[in-house]
């Protein structure tokens, strides 16, 4: 008799196996990183700069997040 846990595992795996590889996986990753790069812009400026002595451009953490996330996305698209 087949182990029921293995059956559940096989069922879940079959869902992921059905996603086109590598094209579909790269699309998922791209959406994930783009959402990440842009997530800071959903916050108010006040929240981003809270605790900072001034609001200079280089201190805008939304830009920090954008640049960092896009750099890593480039790595994932390359490999």
């Amino acid at each position, binding site marked *: 008799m087949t*182990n029921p*846990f*293995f059956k559940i*595992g096989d069922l879940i*795996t079959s869902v*992921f*196996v059905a*996603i086109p*590889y*590598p094209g579909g*996986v*790269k699309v*998922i*990753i791209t959406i*994930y*990183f783009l959402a*990440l790069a842009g*997530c*800071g812009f959903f*916050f108010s400026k006040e*929240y*981003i*700069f*809270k*605790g*900072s002595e001034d609001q200079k451009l280089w*201190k805008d*953490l939304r830009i*920090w*997040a954008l*640049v*960092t*996330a896009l*750099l*890593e996305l480039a*790595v*994932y698209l390359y*490999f």
Partner: protein
Amino acid sequence: MALAGIDIFIIFVYMLGIMVLGTYFSRYVSKADDFYISGRMLPWWAIGMSLVATDISALDFIAVSGQGYKWGIVVANFDWIGCLPVMIIGAFFIVPFFWRSGAYTISEYLGMRFNAPVRLVHGILWGAFLACILGALYWATGLMLVEFLPIPDEFLGGTLKSSLNFLLSFYGCAEGNNWQIMAWVILIAVTVGVYCYAGGLSAVVVTDVAQLVIMFIGGIAIIVLGMIRVGGLQGLFDKVLALGPEYQNHFKLFLPADSPSPYPWHGILFGLAFVLAPAYWWGNQAIVQRNLGAKSEWDTKAGMIWGAFLHSLIPIMVTFPGLIALALYPGEKSGDVAFPRLIHRLLPPGLTGLIFAVLLAALMSTAASNLNSAATIWMKDIYQTFLVKKGTDKHYLNVGRYLTAFFVLFGILFAPIVTRYSGLYIAIQSFLTFIQGPNLALIVLGIMWSRATGWGGFAGLITGLVSAVLMFYFKKHIFTLEEPFLYIAWWSFFLSVVAIIIVSLLTKPEPKMKLLGLVWKYADKDQELQKALQERAEK
């Protein structure tokens, strides 16, 4: 393999320098706050560098490069998708709440958000984990040190060997060169213990900064030399791919869902990126403690994102050496020897000492953070909360220092237990697996769902913990993979979330005043928040 005189000199200067630098900061420690959270004076750049130095241990250089040797670039996911996304999200959504609460520990925050039982169980779990992980770190590094600096049998007239073998006989492992590993364990543990005892978190962070700089210099040196030897990136690709069909996925960051490796893409994405990584970066006391010591809310957020950027450079230093070693020296039985072989055969005298200092830096920065955090949790969440509630500030400072000394000893005595596990990296993950799922569920629902109640949190913690332990011990009957730690983390997180939701809906909602400043819903009500925090501080 023996080091040249210049190498030993570099190592000696490095260890002495770090010890002096760390103990120098004892002059800035006069209160408990200074010892545990640096008097809340840490700037963003030091926080970011310290976060990365804490995360990267000598294990990463040895075990991750070993996994890179065996499985390929897919293990870089632990440092790429396993870090950057959750660090950015954590910077905006998570650490500001920890910082605003004024807590010393995550367990303390969860105690404020949920209830005292959650704080107690969470504190004991993390306190025990941080203490045990020290032993694993020490043993792994001792293993590495013996490779470079073997101790002669006749050292100190053979007394050292016989004494340590006597100690190891209690663990059933008084064999081979284990006594040499134990000798290095004791030396490293005491060195780290001295500056942690003296300078607290400030000493940990400032030495982390220096150690990260050394790690980058040494790591880049070995990669440059290695890449020159293999003929650049293209040469590396060609050499590895020419090894045979089993190496064709060595340069793929995502492996097919039906891959026989422990890292299929859905396991990486849903187990690592969505559960293990956030639990580690948002819920590991050794990581978050420097965020709690930030001098402002902006600094705690900026430190996390700066750390994310620096961390994205780490796989170049910890994964690529494994691939270079594979290209140059294929056929090793264990991947764990890849990095030592690379150093042994590739580097000239002088540079070997520098790389050796890099490995020591990686170990010491991680060990120091774990040591300091273990002392903080046991003092703040257990001793001060349940044993001595009305002690003086000086008393709590002293207790922190005594606990630091105790955990140095505990780490030394725990270290030989690691020999029972076949793979060092897997051993670390096994420890983490038990607590990561419920830990994440508590933090995420605690911050994002104001309806989550104290007993809901407690039920989620216990459910997640028990389910993770059961899944771990019955893994052969539940999972088809040999080491399914990613899946155990995911399922224990899921079960924990379900338990929190069900029990919370069955219990009375928490009063609004209790939640101010602790949950997302009441994040921006500043006047009320300040008042609530003030009242909490006065209690």
